[in-house]
């Protein structure tokens, strides 16, 4: 039996019935890793011994692949950056503690864009990941390793992180379900920070039900992350039982149905809308008038926060230290120059610029005000509809090396950024394939802490597409 093909739900059922053990699951994933990783490159490192030890100690646990910016004690945590090559985590992130307490174990470290900055995983400083559906194409990013591992059946499920679309866009490219939880739903303690007012950890899985099970394990208040409120975590898997489109009001934000949309993405999204309508959902056109400013707001706020967060990589306490440094100043400048890749450098410079004296109010201060207007658009629209349905990414997976200009690459996140800025929850759910066989997902968006509703509409959609 090819156990690596299983999802969480099936794995849990098999473990409960005693059909196989956690060690059997891990062994099957290791076999698959050896067969496929040279080709797909989903994993950066895989500590087989540690995975087998954890499985032996927890014979009913389901292994989960971990994006390489989430700390797991004793494991590397490089953020796919040369600056953290050789770094070994001294402690478990809260999400890892939560996983371990809920019948899961971490298993393998998956690739990503360096420090989660990118939309193709090509910015990884440590490895190349290919799309399992077409090896000449990117898996998306920044959680490209997670998406390739799930889509390529190289794991049971994976954790990703989403700052402006980094779970949803790769999920769309690799035929997985991805959930970006509401801001504050999941703790970030022990997750290397990119843009702290946006970052969220979320599940990337083979089905919506699997995402519901995994999110339940991840979510909740953590006293080590002050942004997590004491709001109960529902049993999401139970909440989505009997999910249906009947009686749901689904909004189509007109700003997301633009002329430049890839024709195949447009066709698949249009078909998705028709399927929702014939399954009983009421479809209405709505407007989020400040959408056009979202990308500009994001590319001020995210680099600004990143430039502050990445100041900690200075060659002093951990990470790469330049051998060429003569004094403290060159220790900083040379260690960072040698350790960071080009996209990270660009964003640090951009972020430092918008925060610098004389520009702060015009850029960072103003962007925060426009962000309020974007959030108000969502508050307003969710008084009228249960969920929004939009394309997830403007195109299917593109070719490796195809997008060279940074600004063109940024446009990948056009549809995922506004909801990230608003702090609401959103999903990417597989919707179909292009003529060339590339997967395409659609995005559902619900209000803040409305994960039950988000997962229900996603499940109802999955059921009608299957």
């Amino acid at each position: 039996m090819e156990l690596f093909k299983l999802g969480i739900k099936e794995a849990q059922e098999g473990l409960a019935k005693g059909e196989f053990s956690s060690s059997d699951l891990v062994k099957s994933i290791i076999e698959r890793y050896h067969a496929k990783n040279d080709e797909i490159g989903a994993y950066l490192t895989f500590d087989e011994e540690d995975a087998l030890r954890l499985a032996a100690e927890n014979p009913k646990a389901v292994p989960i692949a971990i994006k390489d910016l989430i700390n797991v004690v004793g494991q590397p945590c490089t953020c796919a950056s040369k600056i953290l090559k050789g770094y070994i985590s001294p402690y478990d992130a809260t999400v890892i503690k939560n996983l371990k307490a809920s019948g899961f174990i971490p298993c393998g470290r998956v690739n990503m864009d360096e420090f989660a900055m990118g939309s193709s995983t090509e910015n990884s400083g440590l490895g190349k990941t290919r799309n399992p559906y077409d090896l000449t194409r990117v898996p998306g990013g920044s959680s490209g390793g997670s998406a390739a591992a799930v889509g390529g059946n190289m794991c049971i499920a994976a954790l990703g992180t989403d700052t402006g679309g980094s779970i949803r866009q790769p999920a769309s490219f690799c035929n997985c379900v991805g959930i970006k939880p509401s801001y504050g739903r999941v703790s970030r303690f022990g997750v290397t920070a990119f843009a702290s007012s946006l970052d969220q950890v979320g599940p990337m899985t083979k089905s919506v039900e699997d995402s519901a099970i995994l999110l339940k394990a991840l979510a909740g208040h953590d006293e080590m992350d002050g942004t997590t409120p004491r709001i109960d975590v529902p049993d999401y898997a139970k909440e989505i039982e009997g999910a249906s489109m009947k009686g749901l009001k689904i909004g189509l934000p007109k700003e997301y149905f633009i002329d430049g949309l890839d024709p195949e993405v447009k066709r698949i999204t249009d078909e998705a809308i028709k399927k929702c309508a014939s399954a009983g959902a009421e479809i209405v056109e709505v407007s989020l008038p400040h959408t056009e400013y979202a990308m500009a707001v994001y590319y001020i706020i995210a680099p600004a926060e990143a430039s502050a967060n990445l100041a900690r990589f200075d060659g002093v306490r951990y990470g790469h230290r330049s051998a060429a440094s003569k004094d403290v100043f060159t220790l900083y400048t040379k260690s960072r120059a040698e350790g960071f890749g080009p996209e990270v450098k660009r964003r640090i410079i951009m972020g430092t610029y918008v925060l610098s004296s004389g520009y702060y109010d015009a850029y960072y201060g103003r962007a925060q005000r426009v962000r309020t207007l974007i959030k108000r658009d969502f508050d307003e629209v969710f008084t009228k509809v249960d969920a929004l349905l939009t394309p997830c990414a403007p195109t299917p997976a593109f070719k490796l090396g195809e997008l060279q200009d940074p600004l063109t690459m940024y446009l990948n996140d056009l549809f995922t950024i506004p909801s990230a800025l608003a702090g609401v929850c959103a999903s990417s759910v597989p919707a179909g394939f292009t003529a060339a066989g590339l997967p395409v997902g659609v995005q559902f968006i619900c209000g803040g802490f409305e994960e039950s509703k988000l997962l229900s509409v996603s499940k109802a959609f999955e059921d009608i597409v299957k």
Partner: protein
Amino acid sequence: MKIDVAYVAELARLELTDEEKSVFQPQLENIVKYVDMISKVDVEGVEPMMHGRAIVNAFREDIVRPSLPTETALKNAPQRVGDEFLLPKIVEGAES
């Protein structure tokens, strides 16, 4: 507004090669030009949004708890002496 990449990189403690400077300069000018579009939005009287949700101070009890053991905390140090991180001399004229 024009971005001076070499100057900002120095503020960010980032050494750039001449080649990087010449590649980044037009790329970043392009990005700055793009984000400048927010200057036309009317934000009069609009409060800034600092976080993904409205957050007031999140306090927890001030209790002394065990932190990472020194040896664990120093494990990833690029250079150390005893229980300390080793760094080049910082204060001018001081003994190293």
